[in-house]
């Protein structure tokens, strides 16, 4: 480089930001708005996909077994089911456990006596699948095993659920894609306009003998700073907003699954900063290039 220091570039960029203060503020606010929307979209995607995942993981297959099985047969059956492809967990609930649990939930300890000593509950296996789409296949194979009486897994509802979660995921991805594109467009258009308004300035620099590098760097750093400041405002808005929303949902809508992973939230916010500075710097550099041909 023909000039001596990064100090020069930085001071030029800062001075220029200050002297074009309203333009700078407008650009920073544009970056902030774009990245806020983008951040919201990412959290929306994360949560829709998490909701889909939670719903699907809650799908269980209930296998009711014949009355006459011995304890050894029960365990053998549980072992065989566990071997089936796509099975994540198999839990055995014996008839004794079932009635105890039921009594517990009813708040009475005398149910068995009231029924004349006959336990109406069958032994039961509860199967969860690694993927909700495998549930139907597992169910049909389990039905064929001897000792199995009835298999229930929410037939009819499951298909709808899979369809619903499928769309939920795609909508999330679509929203993120649309907002990424929109924010990219907004930021680069804004910074371009910003640089375009200084076409004359860039050309004068060329005419006075400044090299392209010498002209470009301060603009690039200026764009980067605009991106950074806009991103910092955006992560403040999104970070505080999302944390508040999480608190609200966790305390009031307890049934609703939400993504509250700290590391994930931090990563999204870092991604927003990175997008801001990259878009700011690149948009600036590209816009300046157009005027360097004099």
């Amino acid at each position: 480089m023909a000039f001596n220091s990064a100090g020069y570039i930085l001071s030029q960029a800062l001075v220029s930001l200050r002297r074009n203060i309203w333009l700078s503020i407008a650009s920073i606010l544009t970056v902030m708005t774009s990245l806020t929307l983008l951040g919201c979209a990412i959290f929306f995607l994360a949560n829709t996909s998490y909701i889909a995942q939670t719903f699907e993981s809650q799908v269980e297959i209930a296998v009711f077994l014949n009355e006459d099985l011995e304890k050894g047969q029960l365990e053998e059956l549980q072992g065989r089911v566990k071997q089936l492809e796509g099975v994540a967990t198999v839990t055995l609930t014996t008839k004794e456990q079932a009635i105890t649990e039921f009594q517990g939930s009813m708040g009475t300890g005398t149910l068995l006596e009231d029924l004349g000593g006959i336990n109406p509950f069958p032994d039961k296996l509860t199967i969860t699948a690694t993927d909700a789409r495998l549930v139907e296949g597992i169910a049909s194979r389990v039905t064929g095993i001897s000792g199995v009486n009835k298999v229930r897994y929410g037939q009819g509802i499951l298909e709808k659920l899979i369809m619903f979660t499928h769309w939920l995921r795609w909508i999330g991805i679509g929203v993120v894609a649309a907002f990424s594109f929109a924010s990219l467009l907004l930021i680069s258009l804004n910074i371009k306009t910003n640089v375009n308004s200084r076409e004359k300035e860039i050309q004068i620099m060329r005419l006075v003998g400044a090299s392209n590098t010498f002209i470009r760097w301060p603009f690039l750093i200026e764009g980067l700073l605009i991106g950074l400041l806009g991103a910092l405002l955006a992560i403040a808005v999104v970070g505080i907003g999302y944390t508040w929303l999480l608190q609200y949902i966790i305390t009031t809508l307890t049934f609703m699954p939400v993504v509250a992973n700290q590391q994930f939230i931090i990563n999204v916010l870092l991604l927003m900063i990175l997008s801001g500075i990259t878009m700011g710097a690149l948009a600036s550099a590209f816009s300046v290039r157009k005027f360097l041909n004099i």
Partner: protein
Amino acid sequence: MIKVKNVSKIYPNGARALLNINLEIAKGEFVFLVGPSGAGKSTLIKLLYREETATRGQVIINNTNLMRLKSRQIPMVRRNIGVIFQDFKLLPNKTVFENIAFAQQVLGKSKKEIKENTLSIMELVGLAGKRGSFPSELSGGEQQRVCVARALINRPNLLIADEPTGNLDLETAWGIMELLDQVNKYGTTVIMATHALHIVEKMKKRVIRVEAGKITEDSMGRASTSGI
């Protein structure tokens, strides 16, 4: 030092600004370019620091053919040429001091050196009190002097001036002319386009008259009085 060979310039809109111009200017000369407005003086000048390129022909300065330069080589050539622009071309967001210093910053001079040189040239052109002013806060004459200072600060081999006294009162104009004359005496080649007949008459330098895109007169000492 400067050779202009068979140069024609036709703008994209079809305007024929220069037609087959041939010109040689030796190192250390002081040359006035005269002629009516729209005759092609400014175009000729713009070819010399490569703001414009010739449609045909060659412009050679110090053995470098300006028409064959790559984009990144252009700044190197311009650094040896000081230009006083007709419309000043000051950077609107920089102060008087920064505008003048900019020409030194592009050369990568040290901060201390830049400050010393800038302040001394500001003194020389009579801008000492305007250090922190922005171009929009200056009068036309003051802006012109900023432009003059910026053109001179790097002690260029070639000084090109397009109407450098156009906005100045008589006294300041002569001040600038003395400055250009002095710079010329130190060895800088000076090319100045002007309408100021009294200056041309009094300076007794080489005069090149451009009319309708052609050189119609190239004489020493005086300009014929018509149509300057």
